[in-house]
């Protein structure tokens, strides 16, 4: 199997509270500002490591789920999925990523709700990012079959 390498660069200037950084994707797909207010406040306008993780988990999991629905005999028409990542302060450990919640709505032929739930479970076990992030976070998955 090939080793696939993906790169991102960040340039950070200044202190943590007042400084800011720019994260650039190696592929050129994005170039994004990051700063602390957007990481911890409710009114984020810039992205943050946690939002990037939410996007990473959402995209990693959605490919696993598409694969598992097909393996269960279903045909995917469309999957809509939202991932919410939570960072919290955990006693002496400081800030940790404590939870990642996935909420998927699938339109697919040849699979019922029970089959979709099984596929969603297997997809969680097979998604490399779900496996990793369990080092500090709980992962929960909810999948609902939508009628066409």
């Amino acid at each position: 199997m090939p080793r696939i390498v993906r790169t991102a660069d960040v340039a950070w200037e200044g202190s943590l509270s007042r400084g800011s950084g720019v994260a650039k994707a190696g592929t050129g797909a994005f170039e994004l500002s990051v700063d602390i207010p957007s990481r911890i406040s409710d009114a984020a306008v810039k992205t943050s490591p946690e939002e990037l993780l939410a996007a990473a988990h959402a995209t990693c999991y959605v490919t696993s789920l598409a694969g598992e629905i097909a393996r269960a005999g279903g045909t995917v028409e469309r999957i809509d999925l939202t991932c919410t990542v939570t960072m919290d302060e955990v006693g002496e450990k400081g800030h940790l990523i404590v939870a990642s919640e996935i909420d998927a709505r699938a339109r697919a032929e040849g699979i019922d709700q029970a089959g979709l739930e099984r596929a969603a479970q297997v997809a969680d076990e097979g998604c490399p990012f779900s496996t990793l992030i369990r080092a500090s976070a709980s992962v929960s998955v909810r999948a609902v079959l939508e009628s066409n």
Partner: protein
Amino acid sequence: MAAERRASVTWNGDLMSGSGTIDEVGSGAFGPLDVSWAARSEETSGGKTSPEELIAAAHASCFSMALSLGLAKAGTPPERLRTSAVVTFVPGTGITKSALTVRGNVPGLDAVGFREAAEEAKKGCPVSQALAGVPEITLDAELDA
């Protein structure tokens, strides 16, 4: 205080020939961004992003913030930190490595002090802790020449 961050993705069709889009994120800072299995698993991505690239961006930005905080606490705030994260994905195996490289402009600090602060940031930053299961997380930290 808990901070929640959200991203939404749509996928159309099967894994191999289908494709997806990161439609939106809670902050509104990016999206739509296209993703596909081919862009993820082949050496050239055709300009599309992937979970691994997003993880690289998360790790590099989290590490930079943690290092900035650590340096300021030690009385030597940085003027500039340039960090790259290179994440390796082996299809079928998973994410096997994240390699951090940082070059810092930090008035009043020597190379040894900078490496120590960078090592602490690597250990302590929330994304490193969430990725503790990655077999290899490496660090190359030097002051700007």
